[in-house]
């Protein structure tokens, strides 16, 4: 049995290929539809804003996709990330379970996001794109993209939601340090932004507005593409470096998880960390492996949503994706795990949940912060509120193991630090957190009586 607290891989063991779970899925994904024609979209439909290298990955069903050496070189800046054994947490809980976590907080932007930001910047650079436009809510994805584009000599333009721009200046400074051009969104830089400002000069913005600005910027400039930080297949593909490294580290200590937990917003963190293991379940190598997605009660897409075609954005501009959704017009309440506030989830993950391969569970805000506090007291790291969701689940599972006297191996991906989330910790410590929840029964009753949409 492993006695180490940290398991490190050698730099040479950074994966050379990403894992594409589509190759092992018993039935294929439903196609992405063009909202105008309701026909499956073609690569050409996407070429206006994405490079062909990423479009090919988006539709590929190949099991292994090579990671370009240039991307691996940059991964070396922080990868392989350590696999920790949470011994102090185990001791505090007096559990016979062995708890392991992968720690993605060591990346320069402080989360798992650069795993895909770097790769996306690379493919855009290869195809001669000079600039990438994107949106950022609070700055985590924007930081990662500014970091990734800078390393490949590309420019980045980041539309940062106005309220966040005003209130989180350090995230902005981080992006600017990595040469990102940051606009307070809505901005005067786009037609959409100008129109919006004329209508409502005092608006504090929203993610929907920022997305529209970034897409317009990309669509109206030949040298500019758009990038997304989650949901899409290619984003998930890039994130599988996390799970692949974790598998290798477990091999080193001759362990294999019995149960895996991860938090879900758009699904890229969860999928990246778990799909390499989920592949073993799909192919019958580990039929009893339990994989659980953890989400907020305030935005319980997988546990309370409907599985159907819906838009990926609030404005209804994107192609239609088959996924669990709370409806693209649903505006999640202001919980602190802002990264989990998304009305839908990655189609790949949704299909695996729908088909029963992956379970899902939802938590209230207060209980996840209690878990984060216990984690900080035992393991030291002050983690992002998003990660606190799976830590809650891990603690509950470890306590169940204690009750039942079971020696399970529990694994989770600790996706990032919470150093920009201390306001949320402050609210928790002073008892001011609000436990939002989705009134699923009343919504169901409401939907049952609404005129059916076309």
């Amino acid at each position, binding site marked *: 049995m492993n006695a180490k607290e940290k398991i490190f891989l050698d730099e040479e063991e950074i994966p050379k290929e990403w894992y594409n779970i589509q190759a092992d899925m018993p039935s294929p994904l439903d196609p992405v539809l063009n909202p105008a024609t309701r026909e499956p979209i073609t690569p050409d439909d996407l070429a206006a804003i994405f490079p062909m290298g990423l479009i090919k990955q988006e539709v590929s069903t190949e099991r292994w996709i090579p990671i370009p050496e240039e991307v691996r070189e940059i991964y070396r800046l922080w990868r392989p990330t350590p696999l920790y054994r949470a011994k102090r947490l185990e001791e505090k809980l007096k559990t016979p379970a062995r708890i392991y976590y992968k720690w993605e907080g060591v990346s320069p932007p402080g989360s798992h996001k650069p795993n895909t930001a770097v790769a996306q910047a690379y493919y855009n650079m290869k195809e001669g794109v000079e600039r990438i436009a994107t949106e950022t*809510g*609070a700055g*985590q994805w924007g930081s990662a993209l500014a970091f990734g584009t800078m390393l490949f000599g590309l420019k980045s333009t980041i539309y940062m*939601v106005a*309220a*966040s721009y005003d*209130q989180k200046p350090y995230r902005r400074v981080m992006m600017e340090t990595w040469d990102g051009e940051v606009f307070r969104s809505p901005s005067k830089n786009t037609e959409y932004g100008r129109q919006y400002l004329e209508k409502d000069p005092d*608006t*504090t*913005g*929203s*993610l929907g507005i920022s997305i529209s600005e970034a897409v317009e910027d990309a669509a109206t400039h030949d040298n500019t593409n758009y990038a997304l930080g989650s949901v899409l297949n290619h984003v998930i593909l890039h994130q599988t470096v996390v799970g692949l490294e974790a598998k290798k580290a477990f091999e080193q200590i001759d362990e294999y998880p019995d149960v895996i937990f991860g938090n879900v917003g758009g699904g890229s963190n969860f999928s990246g960390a778990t799909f390499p293991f989920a592949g073993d379940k799909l192919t019958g190598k580990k039929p009893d492996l339990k994989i659980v997605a953890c989400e907020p*009660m*305030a935005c319980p897409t997988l546990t309370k949503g409907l599985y159907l075609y819906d838009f990926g954005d609030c404005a209804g501009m994107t192609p239609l994706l088959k996924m669990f959704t*709370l409806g693209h017009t*649903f*505006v999640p*309440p*202001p*919980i*602190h*795990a*802002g*990264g989990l*506030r998304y009305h839908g989830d990655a189609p790949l993950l949704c299909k695996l949940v729908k088909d029963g391969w992956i379970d899902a569970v939802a938590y*209230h805000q207060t209980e996840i912060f209690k878990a984060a506090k216990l984690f900080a007291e035992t393991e030291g790291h002050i983690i992002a*509120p998003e990660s606190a969701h799976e830590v809650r689940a891990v603690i509950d599972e470890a306590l169940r193991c204690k009750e039942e006297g079971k020696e399970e191996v529990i694994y989770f991906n600790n996706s990032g630090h919470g150093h*920009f*989330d201390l*306001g*949320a910790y*402050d*609210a928790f410590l002073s*008892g001011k957190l*609000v*436990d*939002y*929840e*989705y*009134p699923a029964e*009343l*919504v169901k*009753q*409401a*939907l*049952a*009586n*609404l005129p059916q949409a076309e």
Partner: protein
Amino acid sequence: MKIGFLINPIAGLGGSVGLKGTDGLVEEALKRGAKPVACERAKKCMQELELDTSSVILTCSADMGENTMINQSQRYEVVYSFEGNSTSEDTKNACKTFLEAGVDLLLFCGGDGTARDVYSIVGKDIPVIGIPAGVKMHSAVFAISPGGAAKIVEHFAAGKAELRDAEVMDTDEDAYRRNELRMKVFGYAQTPYEPVLVQQGKSLFQSVSEEKAKEEIARFACEFMADGSLYILGAGTTTQKIAELLGLGEEKTLLGVDAVKNRELVGKDLNERELLRLLKKENENEKEKKGIFPVKLLVSPIGAQGFVFGRGNQQLSAKVIEKVGVENVIVLATPHKLSETPFLLVDTGSEELDKQLSGYVSVVCGYRMAQRKEVRRG
């Protein structure tokens, strides 16, 4: 900016000497050694209040305001004078004078009784804010402290405050002193509050005004109310907003309990007996039709302490709630209202029912959104 300012100098007198209120008991309170507190509380507020030089405070003579304003930095004018000891009539007359003088905001210092006197004259014509000084303060027009009142006035003067509806409540003091709590909502005043940006951590939100929050709750309610059930609507401006969106407009009574089915008002300002009769009739009707639609009760917490049942809506008695069924009670409240109370309270008069209503409930607080909130026995 003109701010009307008055003190009820006897407010709070009874509290320190064990009287449940001060109305009609000033001499008794003074005999028991009570010390006036209202002027001190008002002074604290004025010491913290910073206004620009263009603002003026219009106030009353002697201990209804002037005595407190002497030695303060704010510009003031005495516009109402009285002789001898001030009374409830003086509060009302001062308010009339303030209205005639065109004040933008009325700041008063007192308790529920004072709030009621003020409301009886100004209604919703101008916003009011109370410096808490009374024995009873169930009304939602009070700031949490004298300093808090000063801050809200400053924000209002700077144009940064928004307005919300706030219950003006008072008890029947005779009954109260006999340990019977009978509370009534007299109306809804307008009170300023400072919108707080909810954004911390990673989310990105501007505050939602009370009016907008009510609209969102009402929009959601109108959707789920289309299921054919009989809905009993409790008092208040949130349920009134629902009636408005249902197209019932003026028909809904603001302070009473009404019943709605399939977008039609089927009962208005119902008392306990009428409610029980309606429930019985509905039960018989649905039995005939092998009905599957239960009766549902939509209620909003009332007053500063957040009572769901037992204050200001006594017609929703234990008997009525039991007939409806605890599982069919739907609580609605705006995020601001919920942020003001750490938990909600129930006091139906039935210990068993209070127990059933206690614990965590899902309170609808927006469009397709709820908050988990603890309910305790009041």
